[in-house]
């Protein structure tokens, strides 16, 4: 992994915005979200992201990636958040590819070239209905069966699981007290039951149940001698949390900009709303919250890419602050748009719903605060 120089990061940021501002206007986003094919995102767009090198930005050069780190990936995710991109960036690039990169055998890692070239979409099915945000509560089992395994269990709703080519699924090997294994499961394998549903923000996903799914030995990441995967799962979920924070920062910047523009043009009581000090301070509050979140996310990204021991806490703190900012900025963007903010027609409500989702994905502010509290020295 090699961080990009500032100039390269700037170029990456600009090329993303150039592309998305041109090809991912809100009207287009809505069409993709609600298209008849039922996948809820743009397959063509995914191919374009691959061509632009964005899918491989943080993948090793050996698989066709640019060898960038979490920060480079976050630049892509923030741009996605800015335009409410629907594509499975977090699911595939952070969770799925991350799992393979961390635990996979060389042969399994080599398959990441298909992530870089856009051919392989992944989703990570780990959380279970009784787990809440706890990471170590895994009841799904993977019973050894000859060289392979039989996977059984129910996983909670996961974004993009309905459309992924393969699901990375956790299950305890041999029974409820066994070590956690990570398995690559083709979504269309017999016994994989996909209950597709819309999420709060309109994106699609599924709650997936595995009913005696037969898997070969090569489906297990790292093979039969792989270590207990729980530590990797913890790291992945932390990264997932940071990833949705990066998306949220992009979304908050966009929605604050739009709200400011609205206040300047909307007139009531004979003047633009932007003339009222109460409203000026409100949008200032939105702006400051966004800035603080951005800075904390950046600090966490740096800590992750530096590989230091403080990365975990930096991520948790960034999640707490970004989630709080998202709640405030999203809510106020609706409030300041009045009735218009409550319509499906305007983008504002969609930003509000995306920010609401991102607050909760991979754990919410209260949950991370609780983890930090547990680590506070006596």
């Amino acid at each position, binding site marked *: 992994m090699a961080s990009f120089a500032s100039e390269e990061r700037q170029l990456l940021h600009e090329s993303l915005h150039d592309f998305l501002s041109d090809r991912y206007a809100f009207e287009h986003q809505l069409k993709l979200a609600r298209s008849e094919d039922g996948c809820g995102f743009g397959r063509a767009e995914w191919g374009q992201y691959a061509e632009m090198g964005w899918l491989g930005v943080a993948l090793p050069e050996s698989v066709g990636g640019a060898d960038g780190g979490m920060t480079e990936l976050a630049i892509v995710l923030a741009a996605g958040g800015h335009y409410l991109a629907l594509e499975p960036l977090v699911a595939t690039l952070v969770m799925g590819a991350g799992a393979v990169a961390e635990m996979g055998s060389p042969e399994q890692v080599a398959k990441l070239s298909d992530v870089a070239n856009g051919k392989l979409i992944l989703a990570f099915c780990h*959380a279970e*209905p*009784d*787990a*809440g*945000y*706890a990471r*170590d*509560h895994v009841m799904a089992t993977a019973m050894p069966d000859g060289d392979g395994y039989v996977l059984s269990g129910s996983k*909670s*709703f*996961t974004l993009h699981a309905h459309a992924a080519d393969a699901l990375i699924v956790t299950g305890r090997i041999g029974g409820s007290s066994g070590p956690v294994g990570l398995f690559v499961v083709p979504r269309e394998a017999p016994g994989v039951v996909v*209950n597709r*549903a*819309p*999420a*709060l923000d*309109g994106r699609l*996903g599924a*709650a997936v149940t595995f009913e005696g799914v037969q898997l070969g030995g090569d489906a297990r990441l790292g093979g039969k001698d792989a270590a207990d995967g729980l530590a990797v799962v913890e790291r992945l979920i932390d990264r997932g949390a940071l990833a949705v924070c990066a998306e949220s920062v992009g979304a908050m910047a966009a929605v604050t900009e739009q709200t400011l523009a609205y206040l300047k043009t909307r*007139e*009531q*009581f*004979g003047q633009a709303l932007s003339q009222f000090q*109460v*409203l000026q301070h409100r949008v200032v509050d939105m702006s400051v919250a966004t800035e603080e979140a951005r800075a904390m996310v950046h600090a966490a990204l740096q800590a992750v890419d530096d590989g230091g021991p403080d990365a975990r806490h930096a991520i948790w703190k960034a999640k707490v602050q970004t989630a709080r900012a998202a709640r405030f900025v999203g*809510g106020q963007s*609706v*409030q300041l748009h*009045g*009735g218009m*903010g*409550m*319509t*499906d*027609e305007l983008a504002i*409500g*969609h930003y*509000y*719903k995306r920010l*609401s*989702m991102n*607050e*909760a*994905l991979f754990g*919410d502010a*209260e949950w991370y*605060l*609780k983890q930090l509290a547990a680590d506070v020295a006596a």
Partner: protein
Amino acid sequence: MFIRSVAHDTTLDAFREEVRAFCEEEMPAEMRLKRTSGQHIEKAEYDLWLKRLGSKGWLTGKWPKEHGGLGWSPAHFLAFCEELGRAGSPPVPPFGTTMAGPVIYTFGTEEQKKQHLPAIMKNDAWWCQGYSEPGAGSDLASLKTKAVRDGDDYVVNGQKIWTSLAHWADWMFCLVRTSTEGKKQQGISFLLIDMKTPGITVRPIIAITLGHHLNEVFFDNVRVPASNLIGEEGKGWTYAKFLLANERVGNVDIAKFEHYLEELKKLLAVTKEGGRPLSEDPAFKRRVAELEVGLAGVKALMADQLAAEREQGGAPTMMGAAALKLRGTELQQGILQGLVDVLGRHGMVYQTDALAPGWNGEPIGPEGSAALVYEHLYRRAATIYGGSSEIQKNIIAKGSLGL
């Protein structure tokens, strides 16, 4: 300072029991189920139920006896609304019963009273409120929909927005501009418009809930008999203000807040984290405690309003109504946010299909989740409609603090 009695009014306990019993016997079972599942109620079944309530005179219980009502006090009316809510009934739509009706019996002619009041009492007519316009939200007085006198008619041109239930309504009470001279408030008139009049187009607005109850209404040379004018030309703003305080208190449905707080506690008990119910989590217990404090605050403000109304003969104070609306809607959003935060553990789905009658699919997460998410999204508007929180603060600033 602590002068009036805010003791709980036990004289209404028998009435409450009467309402409960009536709902138990007369409310269609499907309707009660829909309240829990959140499935949308169709016009026909809503109408049937409202007519049953109307047969007891309860739709207009708050009206004075001289106008066909039962002369209920504000506390009596509140008790009725609370018991309806507790029984799982949808609310009585306010547009005819607490808005158009009172304006008609207070300021209307005998003809107008005869034409409209009996129909409102029996729910033979559905009403909608034509107030807001794209350019007139918080600044309602700047409305532009024009009504020009032409012989025995007014010709109406313009557009109203955020019109709840316009797609069901038979009649609209509409604020129109009859003059551009003088202050903007002085050029406003209050006109009753038959929704079947040629030239009216109703266009649905889909909300962030993805549901439809709001509309835009377009008027293209709509001829309205001049006999549909309420009171005098140019006095429309006065008649509208007469209604506003009522609307604000009405937007604080305490029984509903209690219901959602109960739902939160139930949801906490059935949602697990690491295999343990969230109801055991200290952070959530504290959260519930905070919401209970908030609820006690809103109840106390409401009790105060009712005490003031008993003294002042029936109308809520502008001040008290503003504070109640401000704090009540904040609390409402807080309770619903708590619910959604718990639902995040189930993956934050919004199965809108579950809200369509007759859905047979497999719910993800607890039963009734879609209804809770719907309510949470809908009530993001609670701090916007009925006078936004910012406007309520302006009212308190000007009216109470002399700013």
